[in-house]
């Protein structure tokens, strides 16, 4: 059964066409990795799928919900890990995750939040303001949201950046479990080697167009 469908998606910034005629379908447990040069439209596609902006042209449905009429419900079913961590520096990891949970109307216990922070390897820093965290620590805390929210779609923009080798293995194991549980992942990456551990379908974007399967561009 198709869980995610994108048809005829076009997007432009002013006169510049960023995405042209994107077609994409996904089923439970699918992982699509978007490869492409800088400016090929990977991040824009992820941002549009996150429903941050309204679609200019085309259609997007997730779990049968149309993005035009059900933006809030779709946002409830996905987590977008973008280049920005979306963290508040004055809040501790516990407070950041509580904040995130309340915005999604989730009710995890304090214990569950602390356990998640332990799982992502930040247990010692659970009550320290996240302002002083390294980029890798911020990335781990951002990914902790995935464990709290248990979404059906995960949008990841360069998730391996700022992670060391151990962090990459840790992330891949989390993503593998997520896929086994029936979740879907759409990821933008420049790094085929790090993604190799995941069972995924590569898709190449060139000048805003998704290339037919089998066509490859070097990035």
């Amino acid at each position, binding site marked *: 059964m198709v869980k995610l469908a994108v048809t005829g998606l076009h997007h432009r910034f002013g006169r510049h066409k960023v995405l042209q005629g994107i077609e994409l379908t996904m089923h439970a447990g699918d992982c699509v990795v978007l490869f492409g040069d800088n400016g090929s439209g990977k991040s824009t596609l992820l941002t549009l799928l*996150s*429903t*941050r*902006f*309204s679609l200019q042209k085309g259609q997007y449905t997730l779990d049968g919900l149309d993005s035009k009429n059900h933006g*809030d*419900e779709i*946002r*409830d079913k996905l987590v*977008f890990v*973008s*280049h*920005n*961590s*979306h*963290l*508040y*520096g*004055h*809040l501790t990891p516990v*407070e950041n995750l*509580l*904040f*995130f949970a*309340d*915005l*999604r*109307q989730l009710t995890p216990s304090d214990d569950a939040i602390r356990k998640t922070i332990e799982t992502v390897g930040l247990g010692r820093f659970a009550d320290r*303001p996240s*302002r002083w965290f390294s980029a890798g620590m*911020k990335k781990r805390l951002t990914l902790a949201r995935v464990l709290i929210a248990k979404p059906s779609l995960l949008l990841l923009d360069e998730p391996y950046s700022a992670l060391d080798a151990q962090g990459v293995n840790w992330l891949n194991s989390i993503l593998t479990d997520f896929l086994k549980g029936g979740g879907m992942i759409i990821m933008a990456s420049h790094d085929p080697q790090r993604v190799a551990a995941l069972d995924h379908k590569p898709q190449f974007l060139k000048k805003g167009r998704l290339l037919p399967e089998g066509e490859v561009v070097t990035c």
Partner: protein
Amino acid sequence: MLKAAYRIAWKDMVGDLRRRSSLSSMLFFAIAVLVVFQAAFEPDRQAAVKLLPGLVWATVLFTSLMGLGRVFQAEEENGAFEGLLLASVPRGIIFLGKWLGNLFLTLLVQAMILPLTMILFNVDAWHVIHHIFGVLVLGILGLTGLGVLLAAMTQAARSRETLLALLLLPLVAPLLIAGVQATAGVMVADGQPWPWIKLLLIFDMVYLALAPWGFSWLVEE
């Protein structure tokens, strides 16, 4: 959903109390204004009663502007504004949270400044201080409602604080006039504050009805 609004407001209040950024600058600015006016006019009791409503509202306006200029400061860090907009709650709830946070901060400052003003200017209006504060609350409801919307509009601008002041001042001028008149009305025994209080209520209803809708439209585009 209201829990989400509460959490946004809580986050802003905690952030401000931990960093003491807006609160301390608003307080120091208000105290500086009061001291300068006191030194400049040295009003007697009767003159002070006439001066106080205008002075209180001028302090409200300028301290609010300082707070509003920083209302989205926490969201600039780590792209947190994008994170807010990815929340699965209606945009109006996000506005409500940001507004409540700013409202609390502004009211906290005014609650500290109002008694200080009365002491500095030796105004004997302690028996109506709750009425004066009530009028301030009514005015601040609308002022911060419109202000948070305009702060969201101008947050990406380079000289946003100037732009915010330029947009806010003409739009809240009628509310300020109503606030000054209502305050003057409650301070004297034979005052007529009710027409002005009703006007304040109308401004509050209009601003607070339009602002969430305007915010939703603004962040969608």
